[in-house]
């Protein structure tokens, strides 16, 4: 077994997953609830405890002011570039937010930065993995949208650190997906990956060559995904409700959350069936009903789906390829289940796309493959090497507010560029440099990454100093800057003001589980979990003893169970979680027949009567609605 257990994490807008390489196959690690997907939802319960995932979802409706979703949209962004987001998403910002400060989101009385909220999700995934391995996990590969900029990548890395994870690599999501596919196919050719997720869209074109996965072009939109479809449907529903019954529920967090849940269900249903009914219980006992056909749905979402076309065309152009030259197309992300999306992909690339791997899981599986490569590889990943690119050009602001591009987009990373600077006046000791990311010609239209000052230039006449600044984009797509004055040989000091993002000290103070106590925390948590499980199985056994099935056991069987029960009772108070688990497993084995007998009798009882929820289910088919106008009861 690999001593370095590195997991692969897909930190998604809507759902997150953790996976690892088991033998020669990547597998997703399920949570305690047995589910692979951990919804990227974080809530604060009434005792101010952090709740994550499926358990947090109910808070979105019950106490929306104490819950948050789609936080990925805010990663690495400033207050001035999220105005659009604030209109569409119920993000509650802290009241005392200063311009230029990292965003803080209110959850109840507390506030958290987006990296901290993401860290809660990551910590949950870390725990799921630790539970699965029965050992601490401290290293991870985390995926990010290919089109994420430097600030968004840095924020993701910070989130990992806050969660107590050493982030060995950030991998682009579409590239990760291609690794998962490539593991199976092992063939050469040109592959296009179309990745439409909950909140982001990416397209990447790769050249596969004897195990080398070389990205030749990537493009995308970090604010385009299933969320946008949901918001569109929510807006329509809200308009309907306001127009037809004069009821404005747009400010009612609970009502909006209920509508959101209903439109998501409708959206999913429409990928499988030609029509569905949107049904929402409104405050005051009223009910909103609307039939939507797939045809109407497709008309509505057409503008959103069409927005994915131009990044695809640009990527093809950048790769210098025609659609006919693409050998395979791979679909990634839950939104690619929508038939309209698939139709567009077929039209763009003139290929039937591959869908053999679950589009929700393929990115996490690929991250696990990359984690395995970083851990030294195995037979399955031998010879596999990923060569990715930077999605956006890196530039420096020069005279006239113009961007001088020094590393062009789609350059293979790591990539570097060296620039030389000099002084304008005699004895000038500082030079200011403004670093930008983006494709536009003017600095003001690009993304500002940082402003920094080269300091401590030795006093010399104007124009004489020659400061060499090296810009290096590492394999994570994150920029590093270093500088040196060449005439004197001194290192120039760099003072940085990152335009967005946390400082090192801030991240340090946010770290949830410090590395030192990781092992201890892990043990304690394991003991608590094992004791809880012991309690559950012992309670179930008590119940079993009172059931008629107990009487059907032989006295030898009963004796054996008593012995195992005794053993578990003895160890459960101790701190050895392994011993508790062993005793639980033994008791589980010993009570197998009892459980079967109980199940049989439960089934026969159920068949005699009506099940409990049957009375609550359905009200018969709804009358078809000719113009699909809203209907109220």
């Amino acid at each position, binding site marked *: 077994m690999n001593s370095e257990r590195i997991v692969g994490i897909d930190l998604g807008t809507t759902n997150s997953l953790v996976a690892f390489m088991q033998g020669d196959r990547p597998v997703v690690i399920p949570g305690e609830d047995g589910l692979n997907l951990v919804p990227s939802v974080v809530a604060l319960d009434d005792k101010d405890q952090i709740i994550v995932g499926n358990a947090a979802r109910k808070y979105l409706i019950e106490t929306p002011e104490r819950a948050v979703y789609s936080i990925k949209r805010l990663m690495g962004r400033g207050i001035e570039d999220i105005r659009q987001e604030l209109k569409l998403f119920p993000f509650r910002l802290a009241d005392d937010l200063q311009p230029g400060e990292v965003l803080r989101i209110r959850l109840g009385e507390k506030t958290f930065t987006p990296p901290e909220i993401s860290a809660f999700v990551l910590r949950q995934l870390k725990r799921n993995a630790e539970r699965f391995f029965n050992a601490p996990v401290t290293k991870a590969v985390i995926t990010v949208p290919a089109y994420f900029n430097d600030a968004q990548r840095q924020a993701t890395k910070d989130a990992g650190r806050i969660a107590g994870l050493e982030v060995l690599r950030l991998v682009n999501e579409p590239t990760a997906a291609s690794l998962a596919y490539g593991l199976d196919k092992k063939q050469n050719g040109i592959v296009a990956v179309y990745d439409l997720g909950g909140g982001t869209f990416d397209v990447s074109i790769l050249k596969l060559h004897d195990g080398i996965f070389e990205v030749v072009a990537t493009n995308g939109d970090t604010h385009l995904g299933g969320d946008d479809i949901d918001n569109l449907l929510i807006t329509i529903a809200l308009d309907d409700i306001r127009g037809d019954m004069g009821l404005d529920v747009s400010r009612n967090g609970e009502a909006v959350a209920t509508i959101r849940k209903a439109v998501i269900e409708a959206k999913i249903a429409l990928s499988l069936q030609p029509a569905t009914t949107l049904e929402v219980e409104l405050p005051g006992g009223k009910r909103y009903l609307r039939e939507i056909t797939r045809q109407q749905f497709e008309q509505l979402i057409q503008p959103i789906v069409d927005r994915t076309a131009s990044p695809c065309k640009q990527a093809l152009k950048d790769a210098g390829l025609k659609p006919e030259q693409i050998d395979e197309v791979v679909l990634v992300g839950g939104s690619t289940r929508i038939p309209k999306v698939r139709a567009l992909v077929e039209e763009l690339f003139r290929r039937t796309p591959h869908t053999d791997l679950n589009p929700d899981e393929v990115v996490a599986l690929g991250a696990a493959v990359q984690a395995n490569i970083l851990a030294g590889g195995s037979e399955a990943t031998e010879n596999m*090497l990923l060569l990715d690119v930077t999605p956006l050009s890196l530039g420096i602001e020069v005279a006239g507010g113009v961007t001088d591009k020094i590393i062009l987009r789609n350059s293979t990373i790591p990539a570097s560029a060296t620039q030389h600077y000099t002084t304008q006046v005699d004895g000038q000791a500082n030079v200011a440099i403004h670093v930008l990311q983006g494709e536009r010609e003017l600095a003001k239209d690009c993304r500002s990454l940082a402003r920094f000052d080269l300091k401590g230039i030795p006093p010399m006449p104007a124009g004489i100093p020659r400061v060499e600044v*090296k810009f290096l984009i590492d*394999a994570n797509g994150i920029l590093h*800057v270093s500088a040196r004055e060449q005439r004197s040989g001194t290192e120039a*000091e760099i003072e940085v003001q990152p335009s967005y993002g946390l400082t090192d000290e801030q991240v340090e103070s946010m770290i949830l589980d410090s590395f030192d106590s990781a092992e201890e925390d892990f043990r304690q948590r394991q003991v608590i979990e094992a004791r809880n499980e012991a309690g559950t199985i012992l309670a179930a056994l008590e119940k079993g003893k009172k059931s008629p099935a107990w009487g059907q056991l032989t006295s030898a069987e009963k004796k054996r169970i008593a012995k195992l029960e005794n053993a578990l009772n003895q160890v459960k108070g101790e701190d050895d979680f392994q011993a508790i688990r062993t005793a639980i497993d033994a008791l589980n084995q010993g009570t197998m027949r009892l459980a079967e007998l109980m199940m049989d009798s439960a089934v026969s009882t159920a068949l005699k009567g009506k099940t409990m929820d049957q009375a609550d289910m359905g009200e018969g088919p709804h009358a078809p609605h000719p113009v699909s106008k809203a209907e109220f009861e």
Partner: protein
Amino acid sequence: MTIDTSKTIAAAGSGKATASCWSCGEMRAAHFCHACGKVQPPSPVDYFSFFGMPRRLNVDVASLEREFYELSRKLHPDLSARADKREQEWSLEQSSLLNDAYRTLKDPIKRTQYLLRLEGVELEEQSKTATEKARASGEVKKQIVPPDLLEEVFELNMQLEELRMNQKMGEDDPTLVKDLEGHRSRLEKKYEELAEELKSHWNQWDKALDRHSNEEQRAALDHMVDLLNRRSYIRNLVQDVNEALGN
């Protein structure tokens, strides 16, 4: 983004590059040790030397690609993820150098520009950045019109002026648009032809290199400078036409 002032640029191995591997002591290749595979400290070399190539401009791109893949398998940071910090640093620098070198040498124009720079020729005046800088600040940039384009450029500028006037007045002149499109396709054709012409200069350069003739080398460089200037001049004209026509 992170800032690191503690390390100097590509200086880790400069001057003290040894002939034996720091790890196993075997004689090593430039970038990694053939005996133990360890990445070696980078030494400041030009892109041609990095690939062990002479400064010739006719490059077999397919074999360059093979070499790039081979070296990637030795130098990429993924392979030193478990190594100590120092090795990781070297691997990062070596593989960025590899990528920069490959990106530059595989592209005919970038390769030519790079060689000119290595040979001490600056192309700043006609470069894209210089042009955009001038555009943004509204200065009129002095450009030498290639003689064979004089007539075409004269006519084109008149028509562009006319088009802009028309647009200001809200008028539409389909013939003028057609004329401009004609200019554009002629310019684009010329632009394509330059690629062929460039190859003849490469041959001249490579031959001069074989003969160790400084004079011939200088002549080849001058031709290439002239060609690249004409090329960027044409590109800027096409861009002007595109802007005026709104596409």
